[in-house]
């Protein structure tokens, strides 16, 4: 059952996201009927699900929302900006209620309840002030003249329900539907039909063989009753006869059900739907008629219903379209499997171990020098590699979903600030690891809010500067040499470098008189405790922002960089690894230990020619290449060997050499985090286990470059004194 609840919450959240997207679409360009249907469907599915899992407060709230949406869909009320804002707020509220439900609250907190009531009151007011449309469906049914004199005297609905065999396997519990039905009215009488039950030895314990005949007293209308069974609509046969149905309808019903007509008739009599006399009459009427004299009132149920105006033709049509859509969606869903994330993680862990183990096998194979063994192990290596790639592919998700959340954020924030901002999203189909996607959301939100708050100027200032009044914010994702690059760029005023320098000096982050390049000044905003906003707004400006962004991104083994052009805008680019779990590495040896350089950074390797000077740069085909000696940087014990090698790596736009003792070749590595003890360690991104069982450290090249740069600048700063 717990699993069912989790599924409900996840699915409802998805529906909420769809609802929000459709509402925003509606706001942008007063959407077509499809959008309206989508909105309604989302709310409806949430309500249906909440009904099944018996979460009353969500049902109650969503029900009202759904009613308004229904009116909106039917054109009874007009779409307005206020209504959409209100509906968005309602969507948020449902999200909060789901949160309450997730922590298994029986009732939402009083505060939330109040907020919900306020929303509902506003909704109902909006709905009421709207121009009246068509009269309610039920109103006209009374005017319909009865076709025959044989009306059944009764105020009860008759519901005839047959579940399909697989209903239980689909996770639906018939009992819940009956419980929920009970909330709409009174179940006067219920008869269980177990005729389909096979002999015990043929029975499948997981199948549902039951059907129900229900007398139901309620003032709900037919659609409402039908909606109770919405979730099992495809998994059951449902017949609903309104109160005061004609005898012929009951007889039709009897005929259409799979059970024996006489037996069913008895049941109907027993539950009080029909009297014995009526049944006899009816069955008599259904006897094969005299040649050519077809009884005039034997017509398909749907037609009867339409004739009776129990259901309006429009509704039937809509229902048919909806059903078609639902089944389309079903087939799309059938191609997807929901898997618990930890099962997937376990698989990837195992594949990781497999990669290590097979590295060890191929090491042994190459040592043994036996050709067949080498061949077999290289085949295995290749298979393991493709297994690894497929396993990692399982975790890949498109970033578009994360991006689309920003539509709402941009809308809300720009409204709040009175700015007109257009969000342009590109590259939403770019895939990256799910764990990365989950963790990149918050830093991105921060950057986007900052861009709206500080980056893009108010409309008046934009027009004065000769820019289009509408601000433009771009979110882009793309792949670039083994990593993904996400950029957030705005066409605002750009960073104010004078202000940044002044602030940094004031905060003691910068020594007065210290000259920095423009890029260095821009990157000062990532220093802890830095904020240039003159006034603190609710959105940003508390000075805890950018350094947190940077730290979060670094914890993903990523890097963030900012470029700004005064008056033209600011661009943040975030570079992230595609996956957190496994990388292709280049193994090098220095001193006693082995180190791994991420392969996608390696440009080339060369031997270091004996150096005469102390300088840390070399001539790479006419280019100046600064290098880092791992031996020196890490203060490793022991003497440097006579022959050293240089691994040329590229980080961002920079090319740097790393001087090591030995080059040991390419190696696939599973990243093992070093744990909290080493959280202060810079320059090492993690560790990995080699085929020999030894632990090797993964170099974090950009951090190494930063350490080397800082070290040198300090040395340079301290030398003039001597």
């Amino acid at each position, binding site marked *: 059952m717990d699993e069912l609840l989790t599924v409900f919450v996840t699915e409802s959240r998805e529906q909420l996201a769809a609802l929000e997207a459709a509402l925003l679409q509606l706001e942008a360009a007063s959407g077509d009927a499809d959008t309206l249907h989508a909105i309604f469907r989302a709310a409806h599915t949430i309500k249906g699900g909440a009904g099944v899992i018996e979460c009353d407060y969500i049902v109650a709230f969503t029900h009202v929302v759904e009613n308004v949406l229904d009116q909106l869909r039917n054109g009874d009320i007009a779409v307005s900006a206020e209504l959409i804002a209100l509906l968005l707020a309602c969507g948020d509220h449902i999200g909060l209620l789901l949160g309450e439900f997730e922590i298994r609250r029986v009732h939402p907190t009083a505060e939330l309840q109040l907020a919900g009531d306020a929303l509902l009151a506003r909704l109902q007011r909006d709905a009421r002030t709207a121009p009246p449309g068509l009269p309610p469906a039920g109103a006209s049914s009374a005017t319909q003249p009865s076709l025959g004199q044989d009306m059944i005297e009764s105020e009860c609905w008759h519901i005839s329900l047959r579940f399909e065999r697989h209903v239980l396997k689909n996770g639906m519990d018939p009992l819940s539907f009956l419980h929920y039905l009970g909330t709409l009215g009174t179940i006067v009488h219920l008869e269980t039909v177990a005729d389909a039950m096979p002999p015990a030895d043929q029975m499948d314990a997981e199948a549902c063989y039951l059907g129900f005949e229900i007398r139901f007293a309620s003032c709900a209308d037919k659609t409402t009753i039908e909606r109770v069974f919405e979730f099992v609509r495809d998994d059951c046969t449902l017949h609903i006869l309104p109160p005061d149905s004609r005898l012929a309808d009951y007889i039709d019903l009897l005929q259409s059900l799979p059970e024996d007509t006489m037996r069913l008739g008895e049941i109907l009599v027993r539950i009080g739907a029909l009297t014995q006399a009526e049944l006899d009459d009816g069955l008599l009427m259904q006897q094969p008629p005299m040649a050519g004299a077809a009884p005039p009132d034997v017509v398909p149920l749907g037609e009867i219903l339409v004739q009776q105006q129990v259901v309006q033709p429009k509704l039937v049509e809509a229902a048919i379209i909806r059903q078609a859509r639902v089944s389309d969606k079903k087939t799309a869903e059938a191609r997807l499997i929901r898997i618990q994330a930890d099962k997937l993680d376990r698989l990837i862990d195992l594949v990781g*171990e497999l990669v*290590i183990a097979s590295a060890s096998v191929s090491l042994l194979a190459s040592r043994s020098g036996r050709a067949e063994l080498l061949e077999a192990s290289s085949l295995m290596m290749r298979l393991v590699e493709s297994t690894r790639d497929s396993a990692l592919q399982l975790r890949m998700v498109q970033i578009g979903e994360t991006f689309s959340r920003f539509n709402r954020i941009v809308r809300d924030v720009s409204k709040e600030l009175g700015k007109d901002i257009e969000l342009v999203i590109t590259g939403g189909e770019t895939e990256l690891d799910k764990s990365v996607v989950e963790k990149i959301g918050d830093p991105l939100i921060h950057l986007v809010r900052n861009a709206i708050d500080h980056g893009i100027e108010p409309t008046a200032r934009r027009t004065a500067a000769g820019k289009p009044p509408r601000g433009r914010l771009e979110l882009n994702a793309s792949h670039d040499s083994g990593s993904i690059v996400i950029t957030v760029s705005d066409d605002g005023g750009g960073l104010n470098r004078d202000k940044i320098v002044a602030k940094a000096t004031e905060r003691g982050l910068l020594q007065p008189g210290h000259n920095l390049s423009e890029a260095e000044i821009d990157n000062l905003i990532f220093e802890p405790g830095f904020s240039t906003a003159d006034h603190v707004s609710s959105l940003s400006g508390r000075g805890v922002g950018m350094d947190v962004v940077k730290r979060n991104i670094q914890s993903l083994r990523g890097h963030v960089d900012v470029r700004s052009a005064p008056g033209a805008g600011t661009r943040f680019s975030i570079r992230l690894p595609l996956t957190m779990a496994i990388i292709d590495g280049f193994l090098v040896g220095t001193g*006693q*230990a*082995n180190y791994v350089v991420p392969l996608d950074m390696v440009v080339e390797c060369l031997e270091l020619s004996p150096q005469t000077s102390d300088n840390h740069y070399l001539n790479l085909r006419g280019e100046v290449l600064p290098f880092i000696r791992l031996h020196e*940087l*890490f*203060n*490793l014990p022991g003497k440097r060997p006579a022959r050293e090698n240089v691994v040329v790596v590229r980080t961002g736009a920079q090319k740097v050499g790393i001087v090591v003792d030995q080059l040991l070749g390419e190696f696939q590595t599973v990243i*093992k*985090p*070093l*744990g*909290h*003890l*080493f*959280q*202060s*360690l*810079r*320059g*090492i991104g993690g*560790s990995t*286990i080699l085929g020999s*069982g*030894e*632990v*090797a*450290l993964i170099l974090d090249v950009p951090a190494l470059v930063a*350490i080397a740069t*800082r*070290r040198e600048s*300090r*040395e340079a700063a*301290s030398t003039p004194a001597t």
Partner: protein
Amino acid sequence: MDQSTALVRQDPPATFVAAPGVQQFLTFMLNAEAFAVGILNIKEIIEYGQLTGIPLMPAFIRGVINLRGAVVPVIDLSARFGARPTAVARRTCIVIVEMHHQVDDSEVQQDIGILVDSVNEVLEIPAGEIEPAPAFGANIRADFIRGMGKVAGGFVIILDLDRVLSITEMSQIATLAHAGTALAPP
């Protein structure tokens, strides 16, 4: 993965719970002095081997080892107590202990190896035989000592592993040491 496991903790025997107030301790030698730790934290004891040093870390963080696919940090106890780093000898062992610490309000379990000169035995020390730690004189920080166990006429220092192996404290020291080596002019 050729580290042979010298001694793996078995499920405690049934008699373990029998005597209330009696706790079991593993005793080991460090710089010719006897120390003890409660056995409940101890997962296993392995031979010293294949340790990878981590650069730019204080001396007491000796490095990391591969413990059946997991990377486990190894703490040099002698260096942690302010003495010289342990010299590896024939009987040098790594005792793997399971520690719990708080990260962002949730408890995280972490295995840590401690480097000792040699492992002696598992002893039962009744609560009455444990004296409070002396204020000074033991040559290690007083808060590292949980008590002094009386064993065969002598004392063993019972360590408070939560203090000795406090991740928070050790990583703070590492941060300072790291800032010193990496950032300050050499």
